[in-house]
């Protein structure tokens, strides 16, 4: 801003301070109106209804603290991955390579553990959970994050610099990454208990570390998306790439960073998965990408980019999990969960689009 503008502005602000300028600037829409216009509240209400219904149908089984905390543990890894995917989808991109990221995260960690010699023979991969050290855990973590970083960097490069549509770019790295994982493991999974404390320990009494980590990731994702300049730019790129370019944002570099975030989140998911399940899982995780995309879409993040709701993603992770768990507990064939999630997904996106169409006068 020029000095003269600034000076004038300041004078203006000064003059308005006592009067109603803040009231003018921020007329908080009524709670009711916000509830009605934000689809997150609809999905949140739906989730709460589900929880209430299952609690009523299976008293003493579904709504118990132990069942809910088990559920929280079960969704923790998907939560971590989905927060990363939220950033990718916010740019109007997509990341199908999540299973690769998870598996490479597991495999890189396992490989590193398998190369750290332990006093008394053998390697860190064979060590028991109670004998592990912070060094082994950090080495494995670094390996997982690096795996995710590599995958994300390749995705970002192919999307942003080679201008390959994200769907195809990440379809390519999905296959490629799975291949690398299989090659590194020679097609065989390996077990390790060295990372168990990460998943099963309780840094805060009563809360499994896995859940704690997921909560931290959600908070970081929330701040990163909704409060930071980086998040603002992510949404701008997703909303109108050309507008972002015209104001001088380095769109390609930004996209690269966003895909790296997606990759690192998957790699970290792999680390957690290895810690939780005590084994690599090459050949597994095949639908994790679709589950993550489902969660993000259920949560109100627009697949067309520009609009993202990190807390919505959290809700989107929980709805399918609650349906699955609840159906099993009340004795409904859990295959119905797949159908129910499909229906809910389509309805959620439909409501969101109706709302947007009503709002956009383009």
């Amino acid at each position: 801003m020029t000095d003269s503008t600034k000076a004038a502005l300041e004078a203006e602000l000064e003059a308005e301070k006592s009067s109603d300028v803040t009231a003018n600037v921020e007329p908080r829409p009524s709670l009711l109106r916000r509830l009605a216009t934000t689809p997150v509240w609809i999905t949140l209400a739906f989730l709460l209804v589900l929880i209430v219904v299952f609690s009523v149908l299976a008293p003493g089984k579904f709504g118990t603290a132990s069942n809910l905390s088990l559920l929280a543990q079960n969704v923790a890894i998907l939560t971590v991955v989905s927060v990363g995917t939220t950033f990718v989808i916010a740019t109007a991109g997509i990341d199908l390579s999540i299973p690769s990221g998870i598996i490479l995260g597991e495999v890189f960690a396992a490989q590193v553990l398998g190369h750290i010699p332990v006093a008394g023979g053998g390697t860190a991969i064979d060590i028991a959970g109670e004998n592990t050290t912070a060094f082994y855990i950090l080495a494995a973590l670094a390996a997982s994050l690096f795996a995710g970083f590599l995958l994300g960097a390749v995705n970002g490069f192919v999307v942003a610099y080679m201008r390959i549509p994200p769907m195809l770019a990440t379809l390519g790295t999905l296959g490629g990454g799975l291949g690398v994982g299989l090659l590194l493991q020679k097609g065989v999974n390996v077990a390790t208990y060295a990372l168990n404390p990460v998943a099963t320990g309780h840094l805060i009494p009563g809360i499994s570390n896995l859940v704690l980590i997921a909560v931290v990731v959600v908070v970081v994702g929330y701040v990163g998306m909704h409060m930071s300049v980086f998040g603002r730019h992510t949404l701008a790129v997703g909303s109108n790439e050309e507008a972002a370019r015209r104001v001088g944002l380095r769109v390609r570099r930004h996209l690269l960073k966003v895909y790296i975030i997606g990759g690192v989140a998957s790699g970290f998911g792999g680390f957690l998965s290895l810690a939780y399940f005590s084994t690599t899982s090459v050949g597994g995780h095949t639908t994790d990408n679709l589950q993550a995309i489902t969660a993000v879409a259920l949560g109100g993040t627009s697949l067309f980019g520009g609009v993202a709701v990190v807390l919505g993603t959290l809700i989107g992770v929980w709805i399918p999990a609650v349906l699955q768990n609840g159906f099993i507990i009340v004795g409904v064939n859990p295959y119905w969960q797949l159908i129910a999630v499909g229906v809910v997904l389509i309805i959620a996106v439909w409501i969101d689009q109706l709302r947007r169409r009503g709002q956009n006068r383009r």
Partner: protein
Amino acid sequence: MTSTDPSMNPGAPATGSRVAALEARSIVKSFGTVRALRGASFEAYPGEVTALVGDNGAGKSTLIKAMSGVYSPDAGEILVDGNAVRMSNPLDAAGLGIETVYQDLALAPDLDAAANVFLGRELRRLRFLTDQAEMRRQTAASFKMLGVGLVQDLRVPVASFSGGQRQSVAIARAAMWASHVIIMDEPTAALGVIQTGKVLELIDTVRARGLAVVFVSHNLPEVLQVADRIEVMRLGARVARFRRGEADVDRLIASISGAYANEVTA
């Protein structure tokens, strides 16, 4: 900021000794086989409104994008205050104090007005967080100061604004940041009578601050009303220049259509 000596005559074709705030010299720009600019020249002086007129497809928007760092010219020179500059992206232009309201507005529809106004120059807290409240405050204040028709709610995405309101956001953004030259590509095209009046007032305000204003419009009476100088483009090159009072609607139409020229094209 340079102040203007009103006794000096900036007009065309003899330009006098004043230095243009922004000048294009013999710009050539092709898109594949389409030659959008064929040696286009243009000058805008500080404290003056220079209107750029021409038929659809004459190359006005392309010339503007070449002068604001969006396109790099195939040949020719851009000068700021008489010094040749290279602008390889819009950030370079912004660094020189040149701001542009593009014909296609270039707003992020999903972001609110303040986010758009401050996009790429966010006010920060703790280095990496946005200072949302302060940006909204300054946006509201500057909208008010610039007399831009105020937008109801600064929280809603600009996608929900009317065409005129979106136009206002784009204009306010440029006016807020420009310190040397402000370029507006058909800023009144989507506006009603009252809004148009406000934009023309705003142009006066910005000119009074000593900025060079470049103004593209198809509305010739409006051009004659607001412009200190008029430059006419046809088929990718300048064909005529007029000072205030030298042109009328008929003569402008004649130059736009090729029946009249007072310029030897390169």
